[in-house]
């Protein structure tokens, strides 16, 4: 097997046994980036010299046999919404095209302290607004399984990168499916952790009450390893949870016999491609074989999740993006302007893409006098009902199983001109963000040559159980071991 396709677990084993060095591993991944990224375009920025320097330091650390972590010497990259000190951070937007942060996100600091090697920054939909990576202000990213198709979004660069061996793992961010959906489209594992499990400090905010930072990896073991490193209380993020972080990797082999798997009726009624449904039914049979008790459950307000999600997103995003004004940092118009107001109006016109404009305007609309009760407040009330749906479902079962997306990866350009149709591709992923619960997306088969993802949804802070079930599934199946053939 090529070095760039190694799992974290296997690479770590080879690194500590000194069969490979981090410099060799990092160089192999960089060479693969040179070879394939001109086709896939997963990276907005590659920091080659810096990565090799970090790899050399990791090799010294590995050689000394002191303070070695499971991520020491492992090359990875982050979605470009995470601030990286001294490295350009665009968030996929023209308004931040030349922005170089003076500090790093907590998640980047933690990985740096663990000795992981940062390769660069991944492409994404502008400010995380999109489901296909087509809303990047810079270029489209292509799905490694079929270059004419989207990788999903908004963490599309990250999913394509891990899938094609352009990084051993990635850190993404999931506001309403942005980790899970591209993970599903690209045949990798993606976790949206419990809200607050991972610090958001240094992440460029989209929806502060939904945003969840999480890993994209090749398999469940790697996902548990990365979450272990990045989870926990951060004094810089008041919403990060104080609960102790379990040692996820030690309980992976625990039997899942007797655990209750809920199948939400409404998700299967909502409509999905036939190929996706067939694959999901096969997966249910695997869980039955593993001894899980499968039962139907109901999440009655499923249909309302999408409008609730978007209404809250519009409102919070319009507030979060108010900071981009062309005076303190980021892009500022070159046009001659008469006043500060003109400077802001013109900078934002030039700096924001179409989808961002659409969403922040709808946010201003739904929050404006007379409309607040009808839209934003109404959405927050229905959100309470959706949370209640999950609370009551988790009284009857331990985890829920659902498709990650109703379709496989669609063609580049197919939904670009129709925002509502694009929004509908998020139908299965947004409810978990409304409830703040964790969900793990796993490869579960193929439909017409394209990967299908499924998600296991758990109660608050149930990541350990999600990993156990996912690990047992991957021990039974081979889907996660399949790599795209890129020509």
């Amino acid at each position: 097997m090529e070095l760039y396709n190694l799992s974290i677990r296997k690479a770590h084993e080879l690194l500590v046994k000194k069969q490979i060095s981090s410099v060799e591993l990092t160089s192999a991944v960089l060479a693969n980036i040179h070879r394939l990224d001109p086709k896939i375009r997963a990276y907005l920025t590659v920091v080659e010299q810096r990565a090799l320097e970090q790899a050399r330091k990791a090799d010294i650390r590995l050689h000394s046999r002191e303070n070695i972590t499971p991520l020491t010497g492992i090359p990875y990259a982050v979605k470009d919404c995470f601030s990286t000190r001294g490295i350009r951070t665009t968030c996929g937007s023209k308004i931040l095209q030349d922005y170089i942060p003076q500090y790093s996100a907590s998640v980047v600091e933690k990985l740096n302290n663990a000795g992981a090697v940062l390769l660069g920054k991944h492409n994404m939909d502008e400010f995380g607004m999109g489901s296909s990576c087509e809303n990047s202000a810079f270029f489209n990213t292509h799905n490694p399984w079929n270059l004419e198709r989207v990788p999903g979004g908004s963490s599309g660069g990250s999913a394509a990168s891990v899938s094609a061996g352009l990084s051993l793992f990635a850190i993404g961010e999931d506001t309403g499916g942005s980790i899970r959906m591209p993970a599903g489209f690209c045949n990798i594992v993606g976790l949206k952790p419990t809200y607050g499990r991972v610090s958001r400090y240094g992440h460029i905010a989209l929806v502060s009450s939904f945003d969840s930072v999480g890993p994209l990896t090749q398999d469940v073991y790697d996902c548990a390893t990365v979450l272990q490193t990045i989870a926990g209380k951060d004094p810089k993020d008041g919403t990060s949870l104080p609960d102790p972080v379990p040692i996820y990797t030690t309980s992976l082999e625990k039997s899942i016999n007797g655990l209750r798997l809920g199948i939400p009726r409404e998700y299967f009624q909502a409509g999905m491609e036939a190929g996706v449904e067939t694959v999901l039914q096969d997966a249910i049979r695997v869980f039955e074989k593993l001894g899980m008790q499968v039962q139907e459950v109901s999440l009655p307000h499923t249909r309302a999740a999408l409008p609730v999600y978007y209404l809250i997103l519009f409102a919070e995003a319009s507030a979060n993006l108010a900071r981009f004004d062309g005076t303190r940092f980021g892009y500022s118009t070159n046009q001659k302007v008469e006043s500060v107001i003109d400077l802001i109006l013109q900078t934002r016109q030039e700096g924001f893409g179409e989808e961002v404009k659409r969403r922040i305007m709808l946010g201003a609309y739904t929050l404006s006098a007379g409309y607040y009760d009808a839209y934003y407040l109404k959405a927050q009330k229905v959100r309470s009902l959706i949370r209640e749906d999950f609370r009551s479902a988790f009284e009857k079962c331990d985890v829920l199983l659902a498709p990650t997306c109703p379709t496989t990866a669609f063609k580049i350009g197919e939904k670009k001109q129709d925002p509502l149709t694009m929004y509908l591709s998020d139908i299965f992923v947004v409810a978990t963000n409304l409830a703040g619960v964790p969900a793990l997306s796993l490869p579960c088969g193929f439909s017409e040559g394209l990967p299908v993802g499924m998600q296991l949804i758990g109660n608050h802070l149930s990541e350990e159980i999600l990993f156990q079930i996912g690990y047992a599934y991957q021990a039974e199946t081979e889907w996660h071991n399949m790599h795209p053939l890129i020509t």
Partner: protein
Amino acid sequence: MVISPIDTATPSISTDTVRYIAYLIRLKILDEETKVFSQQFSQIIEYFQLLNEIDTREVPPANENCPMNNVFRDDQVLPSMSREEFLNNLPQHEGYYVKVPLIFDDR
């Protein structure tokens, strides 16, 4: 301008309303964008009307997403970013001052 009275039964967002909300959000908008946004916004808001089918008279809004409130920490004095470093990211500055166009018009 004030947005027209709420009519959630037949929502439609006029080009005038689009221009007004663009100004609220401090976004200069081009004429050709106004028409497209007006159609798209009307379509999106209409889809959202399905929330009206849900009775929420007795339901409290979900205002928070984490089980905590009033998170405190000790006030620690730590070094902050230097002025020079901070100024690096300003589009325009003069000495230690942020430079912006005219704010108060005294003409």
